[in-house]
């Protein structure tokens, strides 16, 4: 059951990720990216990270990607023009990518032997209570720093997007 769930959502994630890269129209890429995020949320649930799965959907899929879609709609961005890709890139790009992936998969398989198996319910420390406890004890300083970061980001966005006053 766990294997089937993993395979189904891993395949969805990979197919959507490939779609993000190969689609020429930004809105198709954005919708595919939402697909990646939703299937990753299911995989998080499988790993026992229930709070993070919800946060993934709420923050990533529900807020950040909506902003992307909003900007694409606002700028009425068209499909990307196909032009000017160098011959070497066209020839070597895909084989190099596959080789790189194969190498990476090989190292991951070597470094992490099949000892730890993931099954649903194997780790139950990912609830909202545990996250909140760790966030306000061990990670209090980073948490506060992030809040300042967000404040700076809000100010930056306002300064960048406001109309010129003259």
């Amino acid at each position, binding site marked *: 059951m766990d294997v089937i769930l993993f395979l189904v959502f891993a395949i969805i994630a990979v197919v959507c990720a490939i779609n993000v890269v190969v689609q020429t129209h930004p*809105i*198709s890429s954005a*919708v595919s990216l*939402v697909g990646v995020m*939703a299937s990753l949320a299911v995989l998080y649930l499988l790993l026992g990270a*229930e*709070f993070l*799965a*919800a*946060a993934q*959907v*709420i923050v990533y*899929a*529900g*807020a950040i990607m*909506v*902003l992307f*879609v*909003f900007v*694409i*709609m*606002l700028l*009425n961005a068209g499909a990307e023009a196909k032009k000017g890709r160098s011959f070497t890139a066209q020839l070597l790009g895909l084989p190099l990518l596959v080789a790189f992936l194969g190498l990476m998969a090989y190292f991951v398989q070597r470094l992490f032997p099949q000892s730890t198996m993931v099954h649903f319910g194997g780790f139950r420390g990912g*609830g*909202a209570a545990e996250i909140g406890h760790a966030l306000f004890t061990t990670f209090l300083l980073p948490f506060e720093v992030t809040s300042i970061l967000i404040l700076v980001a809000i100010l930056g966005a306002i300064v960048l997007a406001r109309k010129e006053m003259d």
Partner: protein
Amino acid sequence: MDSFIVISLIKEVVVFGVLLTTLAYLQWVERKVIAHIQVRPGPYRVGPHGLLQPVADIIKLLTKEDLVPPYVNKPLYLLAPFLAMTMALLSISVIPFGPQIQVAGYQTYMQLTDLNIGVLFVLAVSSMGVYGIALAGWSSNNKYALLGGLRSSAQMISYELPMSLAIAAPLLISNTLSLRGLVEKQAGGIWNWNVLHGPFPQIVSFIIFLIAAFAETNRIPFDLPEAENELVAGFHTEYSSMKFASFFMSEYANMITVSCMATLLFLGGWVAPWPAEYGSSYVPAAIFLLAGLVALYHGFHPARRRDGYTLPVFGVLFLIAAAVFLLPMVQSWLIPLFWFCAKTGGILFGFMWIRGTLPRFRYDQLMGFTWKFLFPVAMLNLLVTGFLVALRS
């Protein structure tokens, strides 16, 4: 294990059957309510007292030509209504309607499933609902639809903030994210409901939640994504037949979901307003008795000849319902269900009442209202609640 699967399947069939029927009839009820606000009879021709109007609507929508305009972005155009509908119906699966009950020896909850992140699940699903509208607006390749989609995505992101903050405050008091746990914390009576209970009564966040809910479901006074007199029909201008109907149904399903959420978070779910030892279990029977008598009185009134058959039949049905509520073997699950439906129905009636009363906002007023007023108030409410909860513990 097998009985669990069988029971879950039965529950799913029952819940979705009831939900889809309610969706169809909610629209009939809304038309009736608005008609009566505007002093006209409303749907009256199809069936007794217009009761078969939803069936007629469904047949009409199913048999209309399903037109796909040639200039649309086809995959996204087809995906959008599906997405809107799925996300609207999905959140009902974590809503609890009543306590644990016993059916033929099996213990089960009146709920499809209980997640310990139930509240977050509903938030997540509802935040995905924006895509249905935004993509519908974009893929239609139509100025009005695009404007409607743009407006709705901006509006829904903006109103999600005060809504989440308003939800967070009662969660601080109840100290759980499970929807069933929320109701169990509010058991006892009206003074234990989150809207009145605790170190800080959540009446402010209840009102903020309701206002944000109007915006999230694109209802008047915040229905700018589909403002008829500016944008033709907004994001669903280019949709016809069942695709149009699925946007319509998703709007009503979202209304039901937010009403259920308001009931669970603030109004104590299926808990009666006062304990059973002071006679709260006789209230449903009394209400149905009263309704039956009123229907009978009007049915035999000579001035209402057109209803001379319908109203007496319904009067008798109401009297039978009143008798059923007094049977001890069904009281254990029927009375909580009654209170849940009564509270949710009350909020839904509020939705319709406001649609019949208020005009539409202007777009800059709409955005200014949430960012300059609703969001700071929700933030302040959350701060005060958190401070008082911390003081108490």
